[in-house]
């Protein structure tokens, strides 16, 4: 069934969009990532104009994250206090990111830099997570099936002032690292047009030392506000949020997120991380190939903005 999207001005198959939304929704629920880093490139492939894809994706992430976070709230795996601290950083970062984005746009190389950002960050995050979770699994096997030792994070993170108690995470740390993480993720989110969960999740685990079970829910909680803010920015400045596209994606997405959250409960934390790492590396590899191989069409068309 073809459907015409009023803002994107293209006609696409409605079931294709529902399916894409569903698959990305499952991943979102399982890993606590918004799924933007997968969905945005997929939307480019089916012919949605990039500006519309990025803006609409932000709106769709709000829906799937909200659906996911409700399930986590019920299981009490959301650290609201930590989430709010991260959101404060996230909003500052998003505003900074927009400034940087516009500066790059003026230089005329924004596409390339966005892609390079993807390759570099997905590559680093993916391979670090992959190695770490492999080691964790190996250790768990060596120890004869006993649970892995709780991570000890003693270092610069604990030496900073403004300490705050995060009861749900069982942490007593300074608010500076979470705010810095929030700012970094916010900047990247605005430049790359994603929720930033794929960076947020590892940052919470490895830098802040939060327990994996709490990380997913908290990340979803933080993503809602940042992507909601991004949606409003796009809707009011670029008019590129396509509500019909968003509804189709989010109908698939919210159902998928519910299924994904339930699958996530049955998987071990290490398995969950290794799967996410593999997925992140696959997307990174695809984007790297695009940059390295000779494109079949050397020319690209773009709006000159003079509509």
């Amino acid at each position, binding site marked *: 069934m073809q459907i015409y999207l009023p803002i994107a001005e293209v006609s696409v198959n409605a079931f294709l969009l529902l399916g894409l939304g569903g698959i990305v929704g499952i991943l979102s629920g399982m890993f606590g990532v918004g799924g933007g880093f997968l969905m945005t490139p997929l939307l480019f492939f089916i012919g949605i104009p990039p500006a519309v894809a990025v803006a609409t994706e932000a709106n769709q992430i709000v829906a799937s994250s909200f659906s996911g976070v409700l399930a986590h709230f019920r299981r009490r795996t959301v650290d609201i206090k930590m989430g709010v601290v991260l959101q404060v950083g996230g909003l500052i970062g998003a505003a900074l990111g927009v400034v940087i984005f516009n500066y790059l746009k003026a230089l005329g190389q924004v596409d390339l830099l966005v892609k390079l950002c993807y390759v570099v960050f997905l590559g680093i995050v993916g391979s670090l997570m992959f190695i770490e979770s492999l080691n964790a699994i190996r250790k768990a096997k060596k120890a004869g099936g006993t649970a892995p030792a709780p991570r000890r994070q003693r270092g610069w993170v604990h030496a900073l002032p403004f300490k705050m108690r995060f009861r749900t995470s069982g942490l007593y740390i300074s608010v500076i690292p979470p705010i810095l993480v929030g700012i970094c993720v916010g900047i990247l989110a605005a430049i790359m047009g994603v929720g930033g969960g794929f960076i947020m999740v590892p940052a919470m685990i490895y830098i802040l030392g939060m327990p994996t079970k709490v990380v997913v829910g908290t990340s979803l909680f933080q993503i809602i506000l940042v992507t*909601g803010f991004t949606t409003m920015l796009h809707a009011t400045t670029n008019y590129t949020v396509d509500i019909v596209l968003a509804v189709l994606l989010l109908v698939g997405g919210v159902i998928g997120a519910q299924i994904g959250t339930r699958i996530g409960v049955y998987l071990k934390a290490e398995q969950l991380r290794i799967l996410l790492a593999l997925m992140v590396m696959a997307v990174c590899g695809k984007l790297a190939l695009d940059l390295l191989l000779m494109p079949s069409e050397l020319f690209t068309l773009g709006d000159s903005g003079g509509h």
Partner: protein
Amino acid sequence: MRYLFAFLMFLASPLFASEEEVVLGLSQDRVAITANFDGSEILIFGAVKRETPIPTGDPLEVIVAVSGPSHPVTVRRKEKKLGIWVNVDSVLVDSAPSFYAVATSAPYGEIISDTEDLRYRISIERAIRSVGAAMHIREAQDFAEAVMRIRENNGLYSIRENTVAVDQQTLFRTAIKMPADLTEGDYSARIFLTRGGNVVSSYETVIDVRKVGLERFLYSMSRNQPFWYGIMSLAIAIAAGWGASAAFRLLRNG
């Protein structure tokens, strides 16, 4: 008296610059883009009106050109730098139609001369204007060609020869297929009658392509009340997220 009449006719004749005129019909003069819009086919048909007998010599040929609204387009070219493919230069093509379809009654080169093509801007190459192409970029023509190639591959530009049927040098008809990915605007349909490579008559009409119903409503809301449109988008997203969560809980408990 007879001579005077003939003289008057002679004076009047330049006013009727062409002895053959197009009388046109369209199966529809507006295209409504609805939510399930899946492309459209417009039947263009007509007759040649003339007061005199059919001229002998070169046969009458017909060219139909339908074009969408024109916009400037930035074309960028990639080159390999430090191992990766990056955009190295760009050209602003001043005006390129969003949609362009040409249908002819015979092979294009045989029925219209280059000078006439240039004058009326009928072929796709002529319909694209890039006067402002930067001189320092070599092969500026490549950029205009890239616009044509990319849009042809997307089905937006097409030239289909021998698809206009002409009967008795008087009646003609053709069908122009419009893809699903149409942009809004006034589309122009131009009909040219040619003999021996020269345009003897032309006619132009407008096909109105508009979004209607829900599409229209959402589009104008996103432009006129962007803030409320954004809020509505977020409200729908949150409602859908909550709805799915609640529905799944019911399913599990019930």
